[in-house]
C-alpha cells in the first residue's frame, strides 16, 4: 500500500488535486461574481494578492500568523465590496467590453501598485504546518501536513459557500437576485446590496486562496504570484461553465490534474499549452462549458 501511495502516478494525483483545488477556489470566486453581476473579474488575482500583502506583511511585525490570515480575508471582504461600489456599479447595462477593460485596468493598477509599495522581491511566508512529506515504511508519500491542510480548508470553504447559497435565506436572496433581478426587487429583495455582498464573498475567497498559494512549498508572495494561477482558474471556470459552481470545482480539479501530468510526463512549459488545449476542445464542443444548460440564442 505504501508503495502504491508513493508511486509516481499517485504523487501526480496528490499534487494535481492540491493544485487543482486552488484553481477550483479561484474558479468558484469568479463564478459567484459572474452569476450575480455578469462581470468576469479579471482583477481577482491581483485583488487577492493585494489583500494578502496587507495582511501577511503583519507577520513581520510579530503578529500571530492565524490572525494575519484573518486580517487578509477581512481586507479582501471589504475590498470586494468597495470595488463593486466604485468601479463596477457605473458599468451595469453598458456593453460587455466596458467592464472587461476596466477590470483589466484594475488588474494592472493593483499589480503595479503592489510592486511600488512592497517591491518585486518575493517574500517567503511562514507556513503554519510542516511542508515535509509523510513517509510510510520507507516510501515517501507526496502529501505533507500543509497539503492536507490546504485541501481540507479549501473543501471547507467550498462547503460553506455551497451551504450558504443552498440552505439560507441569504443564499436564496442571492440566487434570486442573480436569476431575476426585477422580480426579486419587486418582492422586496435589496438587489444592489446583495450584488455588493456577492463581490465581497468572492473577494474574500480569493484572498484566502492567495494566502494558500503564497505559502505553498517553493512559492512566495510577489506582486504577480496569482498571475498564472488566475489564468488556470479562469480556464477551470470556463471549462466548467461560468454559471455553474459545481462546474468550477470539477473544472479546477481537471485542470490541476492535466497540469500536473503534463508537467511530470512531458515538460513544465507545456502545462499552460495543454490547459489551453483542454479549454479549446471543451468550448468547441460546448461553447458555454460542461455544466451549464444550453440556452437558446436570441433570434
Amino acid at each position, binding site marked *: 500500500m505504501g508503495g502504491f501511495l508513493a508511486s509516481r502516478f499517485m504523487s501526480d494525483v496528490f499534487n494535481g488535486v492540491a493544485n487543482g483545488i486552488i484553481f477550483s477556489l479561484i474558479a468558484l470566486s469568479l463564478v459567484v461574481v*459572474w452569476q450575480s453581476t455578469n*462581470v*468576469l473579474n*479579471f482583477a481577482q488575482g491581483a485583488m487577492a494578492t493585494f489583500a494578502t500583502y496587507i495582511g501577511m506583511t503583519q507577520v513581520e511585525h510579530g503578529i500571530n500568523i492565524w490572525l494575519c490570515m484573518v486580517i487578509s480575508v477581512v481586507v479582501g471582504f471589504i475590498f470586494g465590496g468597495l470595488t463593486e461600489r466604485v*468601479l463596477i456599479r*457605473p*458599468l451595469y447595462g*453598458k456593453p*460587455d*467590453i*466596458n467592464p*472587461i*477593460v*476596466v477590470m*483589466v*485596468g*484594475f*488588474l*494592472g*493598477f493593483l*499589480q*503595479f*501598485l503592489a*510592486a*511600488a*509599495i*512592497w*517591491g*518585486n522581491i518575493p517574500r517567503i511566508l511562514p507556513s503554519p504546518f510542516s511542508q515535509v512529506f509523510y513517509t510510510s515504511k520507507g516510501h515517501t508519500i507526496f502529501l505533507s501536513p500543509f497539503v492536507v491542510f490546504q485541501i481540507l480548508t479549501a473543501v471547507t470553504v467550498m462547503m460553506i459557500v455551497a451551504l450558504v447559497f443552498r440552505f439560507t435565506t441569504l443564499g436564496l436572496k442571492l440566487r434570486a437576485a442573480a436569476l431575476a433581478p426585477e422580480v426579486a426587487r419587486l418582492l422586496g429583495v435589496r438587489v444592489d446590496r446583495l450584488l455588493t455582498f456577492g463581490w465581497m464573498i468572492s473577494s474574500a475567497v480569493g484572498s484566502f486562496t492567495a494566502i494558500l498559494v503564497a505559502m505553498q512549498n517553493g512559492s512566495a508572495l510577489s506582486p504577480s504570484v496569482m*498571475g*498564472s494561477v488566475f*489564468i488556470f482558474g*479562469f*480556464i477551470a471556470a*470556463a471549462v466548467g461553465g*461560468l454559471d455553474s459552481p459545481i462546474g468550477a470545482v470539477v473544472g479546477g480539479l481537471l485542470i490541476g490534474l492535466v497540469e500536473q501530468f503534463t508537467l511530470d510526463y512531458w*515538460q513544465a*512549459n*507545456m*502545462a*499552460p*499549452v495543454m*490547459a*489551453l488545449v483542454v*479549454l*479549446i476542445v471543451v*468550448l*468547441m464542443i460546448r*461553447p458555454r462549458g460542461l455544466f451549464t444548460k444550453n440556452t437558446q440564442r*436570441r*433570434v
Partner: protein
Amino acid sequence: MLRPNFHRLPTTSRWIVILGVTATALGFTFTFNAGLNAQIASGAAISIVVLGLTWLTGWSGQISLGNSGFMACGGYFVGVWANHHAATPLVISLLFATAAGALGGLILAVPATRLRGPYLAGATLAFATVTSSLVYVFGNWTGGPTSQLFLNSLTTPSWFARMFSGIQASLNSSAQYGADLAICVAAIAFLFMSNLFHSRLGRAMTLVRDNDVSAELMGINLRRTRTIAFVIAAALGGLGGGLQTLLNGSVTPGSFPLTISITLLTLMVLGGIGTLTGAVLGGLIFAVSSNVINWLCSTAGISSTSNLGTNMQGIVFSVLLMTTMLIAPQGISGNIVRGYRHLMQRFTSKIDNSPA
C-alpha cells in the same frame, strides 16, 4: 460640410491626409535627437498593433487581450529567421512577421470566433501566456529563457536608405533612420486599413458587431467575417512585433510581457476605440509617455530607480485606462468629434434662429 470623422472622408482625401501626416512626421525626425527618434520609432511600431486592436474591438466587436502573443509570433519569427538568413531584405522580413502573426491569429480564431465577451477575453489572455511558454518549449530555436537573440544586420532597399541617411545605414546605427523606417511601415499599414474600414468587409463587420442576426439574414457568413477580422488584427500585431524586434536588435521572452496587452488597451481606449486617428494618437502617447513619466517623477521628487519610480508608468497607464473607460469611453478622438458636432450644432442653430 467638413466632416470631422476621418474614416468617413472620401478615399482621395484620406490618402492625402495620411501621406501629409507621414511627411510631417518624417520631417520632424530630421530635427529630433537620437533618443527621441528611438521613442518615435517604437511609438510607430506600437501604433500598428493598436491599429489592429482598434479594428478588432471597434469594428468587429471582439476583444483581445492576446495581442502581446501576436507580437511575440512576429518578433520571434523575424529573430529566428534573421539568425539563419542574414542578408534577408527588410521588406521580406516584415512580410514574414506579418504572416507569422496572421498564422497565430488564424489558430486562435478557430475557437475564439465561437466565443463572446469575457470568454473571448479570457481565452485570448490564455493564448498570450501560452505563446510566452512556447518560447521556452522551443528553446532550441528561440534561444530559450536567458540567451538573447542578436540579429544580424538586415539589408534595406538602397534607394530607401539613401533617401533618409545618405550612407547605407543599418537600423542599429542610426536612430533617425529607424524612426523613418518605422513611420513609413506604419503609414503603409494605415493606408491599407483606411481602405479596409470602407470596404465591403468593413461594412459587413460593423453589421456583424451591431446585430449578428440581421447580418446573418443578409447572407453574411458570421464565422468567416469574424475570423478574417481576427487574422487581420493578428497580422498587424505580428508586423508591429517584428518591426519592434528589428529596431531593438534583440528579442527575449521579456520583450512581449502580458503587461503590453494592458498598455495596448490603454492606448486604444485613450485614443478612441475604432478610429484611425485614435491609433495614431495612441502611438504618439506611447512615444512621449516615458519622457512625461520621467518629468512627473523628477517634479514630484521620486527617484527613478525606487519601487514607485519603476512602476510609475504602469500605474499611470492603468489609472488612465480605468478612468477613461468609466468617464469618457469614447476617448480623445471621440470626444473631439463630439465637441466639434456640439459646436457646429450651436453654430448652425444660431443661424437658423436669426431672422432671414
